[in-house]
């Protein structure tokens, strides 16, 4: 009887299968945050792989497990994927013990990402606190690579101290460009040679001038305590609630809306997030 033959499931489409990828380069950004450049071992896959700023990948280390990480590179520079990863748990500990040229498993991209098509043509304010640079560097680089698609561009980054600022040299160099306002601040400058601002990230808002709020989008990522203060500042600038985007963190085991760990009420962060608007935050409880 035909019906009882074994169903055929294409192994190629198993969404849980990690794909082999090589650690091309790694170096420390801070005491506990490391930068990883990763490339799919299959070169065709590496070059054709596309994603959106704000999306994430699942990393897999056989025998240790899987964990989600934001992509820090931009799809406008294909071939290599970049991540900045803090050593904080089981998977990251294992990842930190790996060397250049070692192979790991990756799968993705997952999540909604930033709606870049809808952001184009507008002024863009990117606000980062601490490790929030991981997902927002992707958007920043994307905007810089497509500079003529955006209006005014502000990049505000607050870190605890100069040595805690991720991509410090890269961002310091951006200050020389005249097509964006790169505002970098540290809470404390103990050595006294920090060339930019001191104070929390919200103090940088004084430098934002002459934006058209209706035509501005803002993105925020940082430690949970930061959101309230930054959002207050953005609302003071009259930026509409649904034009303020933030990207959130949750525990995830699948990345594809099955395992339930990232559920917030009925919203699966991995599918409907991790990028939400401030309106979503008011509308749905527990987001931040």
């Amino acid at each position, binding site marked *: *009887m035909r*019906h*009882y033959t*074994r*169903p055929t*499931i294409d*192994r190629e*489409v*198993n*969404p*849980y*299968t*990690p794909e*082999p990828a090589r650690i091309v380069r790694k170096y420390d950004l801070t005491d506990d945050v490391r930068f990883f450049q990763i490339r799919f071992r299959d070169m065709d896959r590496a070059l054709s792989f596309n994603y959106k700023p704000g999306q994430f990948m699942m990393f*897999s280390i*056989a*025998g*240790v*497990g*899987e*964990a989600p990480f934001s992509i820090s590179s931009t799809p406008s520079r294909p071939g290599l994927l970049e991540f900045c990863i*803090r050593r*904080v*748990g*089981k*998977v*990251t500990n294992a990842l930190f013990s790996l060397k250049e040229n070692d*192979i*790991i*498993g990756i799968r993705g991209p997952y999540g909604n990402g930033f709606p870049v098509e809808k952001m184009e043509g507008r002024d863009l304010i990117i606000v980062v606190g601490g490790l929030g640079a991981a997902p927002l560097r992707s958007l920043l680089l994307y905007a810089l690579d497509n500079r003529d698609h955006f209006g005014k561009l502000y990049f505000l980054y607050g870190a605890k101290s100069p040595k805690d600022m991720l991509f410090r040299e890269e961002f310091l160099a951006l200050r020389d460009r005249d097509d964006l306002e790169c505002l970098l601040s540290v809470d404390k400058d103990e050595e006294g040679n920090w060339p930019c601002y001191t104070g929390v990230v919200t103090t940088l808002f004084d430098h934002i001038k002459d934006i058209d709020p209706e035509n501005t989008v803002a993105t925020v990522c940082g430690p*949970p305590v930061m959101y309230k203060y930054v959002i207050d500042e953005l609302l003071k600038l009259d930026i509409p609630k649904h034009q303020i985007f933030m990207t959130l*963190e*949750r*525990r995830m*085991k*699948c990345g*594809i*809306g*099955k*395992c*339930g*760990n990232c*559920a*917030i*009420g*009925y919203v699966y962060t991995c*599918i409907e997030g991790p990028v939400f608007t401030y309106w979503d935050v008011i509308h749905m*409880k*527990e987001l931040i």
Partner: protein
Amino acid sequence: MKVLKMKKEDRDKFLRAMMQVGELWAPVKQGNETRLRYRKIEDPSIIGDKFNRPILPLKKFLYPPKLPMFKFSEERYEAEIGNVPMRIIFGVTPCDIHAMLIMDETFMEHYPDPYYIERREKTIIIGHSCEPDEYCMCKSMGTHYIEEGFDLAMSDLGDFYLVWIGSSKGHDLTRLVPELFDENIKDSDIKKYVEWRRKRDASFEKVFDFTGIPDIMELSYYSPIWEELGEKCLSCGSCVMVCPTCNCFNVMDELTLSPEVKGERVRYWTTCLFIEHALVAGGHNFRGKRAERVRQFYIHKLQAFGAEFGSPACVGCGRCVVTCPVNINVWEVVGKLKGKEAYI
């Protein structure tokens, strides 16, 4: 839908004929057990004719408590697909079939899950009419009858069964032993069925009015009832284990004892009542309080699925009522939210 008749005494002949197609499983009690459990059947005559909820629902076949996903060695992952036996599950109650249809949406829509699909395709569902007890809430949930989701469904009308054919596969099964089936359904049979329905519908002891629950839950987000329930809840997760629509899982790598990196990536059932469910690396817990976790369970069960799929994810099987050691269940929660007028 095609409907046939089968004599009561022919049931076991039919079940035996089906055993050539795959393993036969049915809910049975053994020894002095008081509750049904799905077991693999060698001799169909041990299957009783009174059906009710087994301890674990149908999900244990489609989405087992421990599911091997990959065999890995270094960075090679070999999917563990293709070794699931063909199984015929007999005696599935309407509530569990409704639950499976909800599970289908979770696992078979965007990013289809190959592990679930394989088991789903290799599971033949034979539904059976059931006798409600004091814990059944299916009438309140509108899940006490089924229209789809089965290959065959049998209504026990005393001396004969009505056999509803739900799929082409089910139709093939009846053709294994065509002599047992009668196509000729008479007026008197229909009357008998109508009478059976009337009696069964009247036999539900408790019914509640579920309407408005999603809205009331939205309004009750800050209600003290969650603190009250959180005080009582043991975070044991038993409600999730037995709930036919709960699907949360954790993924773990299990190493074999060997000098190389070798092992299995396995999925386990987990629950939103466990403290680590919303815990992220670095130690931040988004639902560190028990009250928040109980609320999450009920929001997802009673409110959220309404938004996602148009109906709540509770099918009224009553397992949480039977299982929870401190009496937190859908009855309790709906009662607390709506007050006494919930019960009609």
